[in-house]
């Protein structure tokens, strides 16, 4: 079977009210690593789900070699030699490595699991991929990188010829990334079809032989020759327009210091962190995953307690014991994981907007005032341009961008001094993105200090007045807008111990 190409013929996928994919046709050849790139929401993950049998396409077919595949479920796809390595690995942490490798078809003798054979087979599977892993180890004790190797070993043991990786490096360390790259190169040389979904340009240029670009669920083009492709060409192709104008940066007046952080230490921070942010300033906070940016924001928002250091807000010392303290002081956080920490999914858009500010407007502090509730919800929906049929719609049914705008509306209902944004545009389509940048600019222009955490280099450089870089739980650099370029930021962000 080795040597068969993977072809998508006019794949389309519709969800109620949404066209996730339309007319996707391209071919990925064996002996090649084929990158899929595009903004969030461009349709890459949907395509992988179709390939993995999790979604059934509304139109079009998937072809491997000369054979047309009809994947009705994940088992069909696995049986045809397709393996999709998802971002969230599909493994059971409480079971052993060997059991995970052969889950669903454990070797048995008279109906009882044959432990010694299982171990032998598992060792054979891991050989050459991850020799150091003991098959009897509990999976939960492995590092994320090792778990991913287990997932790859599992795919290979099932005879996968087409292997798709969905953002495989997003939570790996630099050394683990190197190892993964070597394995992917080896898979390519063995004649497998490798699909590689990633946001990281440097990885795509490092290991991929072809790139297909998606935008808004449509196929844009495929670059077959990586040697003539430039970085800018690829970005322009992905964004579909000049990058500068979506950020719409304008210089602003900056006032006095709004938030002063002095020697802050806490969970996730290796060295004391000190910095200042001024009124009207947009401060970018860049770093790779695990650099400690989210942890820093958790400290600043009172979600986590600091073990040392002090905070001052507009010159006044600030003590944070809970998110309520931060909110009362006007330090407001839009969390990274909107679904888990931001929205209350089954409640209405109005509820989600009003939840924080309402007690200040309620009679005696607890009797809701209907006029304020309705008025404020409408006002914020208008101001943030939240696209919703009405204020009573459950927020769950809104797109990611509109959910984010509703949460911004929640904070705009409150007196705000410092706004903390953790990955504010993750998973948001480009149109909503530029609206959110607009909102951030306007907030800063009105004198609010904004801290934006992002792993998107373009975004950080596009909107910030000044950029702080973190790596391995410490601040590693500070660059004013004019001096920030990609190379310098990345250099500061890469862990020094391994550079």
């Amino acid at each position: 079977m080795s040597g068969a190409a993977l072809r998508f013929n006019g794949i389309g996928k519709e969800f109620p009210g949404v066209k996730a994919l339309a007319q996707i046709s391209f071919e990925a050849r064996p002996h090649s690593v084929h990158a899929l790139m595009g903004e969030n929401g461009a349709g890459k993950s949907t395509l992988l789900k179709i390939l993995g049998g999790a979604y059934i396409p509304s139109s079009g077919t998937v072809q491997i070699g000369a054979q047309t595949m009809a994947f009705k479920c994940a088992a069909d796809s696995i049986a045809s030699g397709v393996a999709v390595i998802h971002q969230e690995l599909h493994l059971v942490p409480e079971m052993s490595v060997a059991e995970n490798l052969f889950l669903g078809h454990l070797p048995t003798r008279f109906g009882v699991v044959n432990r010694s054979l299982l171990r032998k087979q598992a060792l054979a599977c891991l050989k050459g991929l991850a020799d150091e892993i003991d098959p009897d180890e509990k999976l939960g004790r492995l590092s994320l990188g090792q778990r991913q190797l287990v997932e790859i070993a599992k795919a290979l043991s099932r005879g996968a010829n087409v292997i798709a990786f969905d953002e495989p490096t997003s939570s790996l360390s630099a050394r683990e990334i190197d190892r993964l790259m070597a394995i992917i190169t080896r898979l390519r040389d063995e004649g497998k079809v490798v699909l590689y979904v990633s946001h990281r340009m440097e990885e795509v240029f490092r290991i991929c032989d072809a790139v297909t670009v998606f935008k808004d669920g449509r196929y844009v083009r495929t670059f077959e020759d990586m040697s003539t492709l430039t970085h800018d060409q690829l970005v322009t192709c992905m964004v579909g327009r000049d990058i500068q104008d979506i950020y719409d940066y304008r210089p602003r007046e900056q006032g006095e210091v709004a938030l002063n952080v002095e020697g802050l230490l806490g969970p996730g921070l290796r060295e004391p962190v000190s910095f200042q942010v001024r009124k009207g300033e947009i401060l970018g906070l860049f770093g790779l995953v695990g650099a400690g940016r989210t942890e820093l924001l958790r400290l600043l928002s009172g979600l986590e307690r600091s073990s040392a250091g002090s905070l001052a807000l507009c010159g006044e010392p600030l003590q944070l014991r809970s998110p309520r303290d931060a909110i009362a002081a006007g330090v407001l956080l839009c969390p990274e994981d909107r679904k888990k920490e931001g929205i209350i999914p089954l409640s209405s858009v109005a509820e989600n907007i009003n939840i924080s500010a309402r007690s200040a407007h309620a009679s005696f502090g607890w009797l809701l005032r209907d006029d304020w509730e309705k008025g404020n919800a409408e006002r914020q929906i208008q101001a943030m341009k939240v696209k919703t049929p009405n204020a009573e719609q459950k927020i769950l049914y809104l797109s990611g961008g509109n959910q984010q705008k509703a949460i911004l509306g929640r904070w705009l209902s409150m007196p705000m001094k410092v706004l903390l944004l953790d990955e504010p545009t993750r998973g948001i389509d480009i149109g909503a993105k530029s609206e959110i940048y607009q909102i951030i600019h306007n907030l800063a222009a009105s004198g609010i200090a904004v801290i934006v955490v992002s792993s998107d280099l373009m975004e950080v450089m596009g909107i910030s007045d000044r950029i702080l870089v973190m790596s391995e739980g410490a601040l590693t650099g500070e660059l004013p807008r004019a001096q920030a370029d990609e190379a310098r930021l990345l250099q500061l962000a890469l862990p020094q111990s391994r550079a």
Partner: protein
Amino acid sequence: MSEVKTAKGFWPGFNQRKFLDDWVMLLAALGIFVLSAVFIDNFLSPLNMRGLGLAISTVGIAACTMLFCLASGHFDLSVGSVIACAGVVAGIVMRDTDSVALGVSAALAMGLVVGLINGIVIAKLRINALIATLATMQIVRGLAYIFSNGKAVGVMNEGFFVFGNGQLLGVPVPIIITVLCFVFFGWLLNYTTYGRNTMAIGGNQEAALLAGVNVDRTKIIIFAVHGLIGALAGVILASRMTSGQPMIGQGFELTVISACVLGGVSLSGGIGMIRHVIAGVLILAIIENAMNLKNIDTFYQYVIRGSILLLAVIIDRMKQR
């Protein structure tokens, strides 16, 4: 985004789906009531109606505050024991002091304390509500037996019987209290920050915390109020029976929870309205009443009640698809 359809004319903005979600169980309760009235002799007789109303009252009162527990993503198994213990405590204090006010106050205080303990253990010590209230359920049941020496505590005080057997304009007092509870807690859930925060915690606790909701305090209040109202239900029951009985109300907590869930309150939190509770309580009580009038064997009644509950949650699950 596609255009939003709003039907014009007779009912502007009528949303069929939302209407069904909100009212279907209450309509079902009404349907079962009408069917019973048509097909069962004596169902509508004043005596039976009064019996039905009284049957609703104990479950209905406790279900009002169970709604808050469920809406916040928890539940409380100790309420059956609280009901028994409240009756016993009221009986003993009245026997010793001859004061109705003291007896009732002592019972309510006991309920409040049990609820506070539940709330603090669950909110502050982060113990799973199942385990925490399973423990207090046994402790409080044990206390009820210890206080009463395992025997019913008879009440002689005439003034106490008002709660269970009194009437106002021909309506029994327990029914009046139940209706007041429905109105009050329905209002509390929809029109106060406390009620909305309860829903937010059940909908997404992490998000509620980050939005500035005082999660721990809200949870403690939910359980404390539930304990207090459970004790009130216990006092009314004791008054009806003219004694505090330590063995009463075994399995009562499950009846209350199933009434709520039957009406449409979600066990995983974030979904719940007072009309769900009213519908659930009515359906359970009417069916039980009808089965009794039809002389259906108790053994079969268990099977039928369980089947109805199962059917209701399956329908609910399918509605969410």
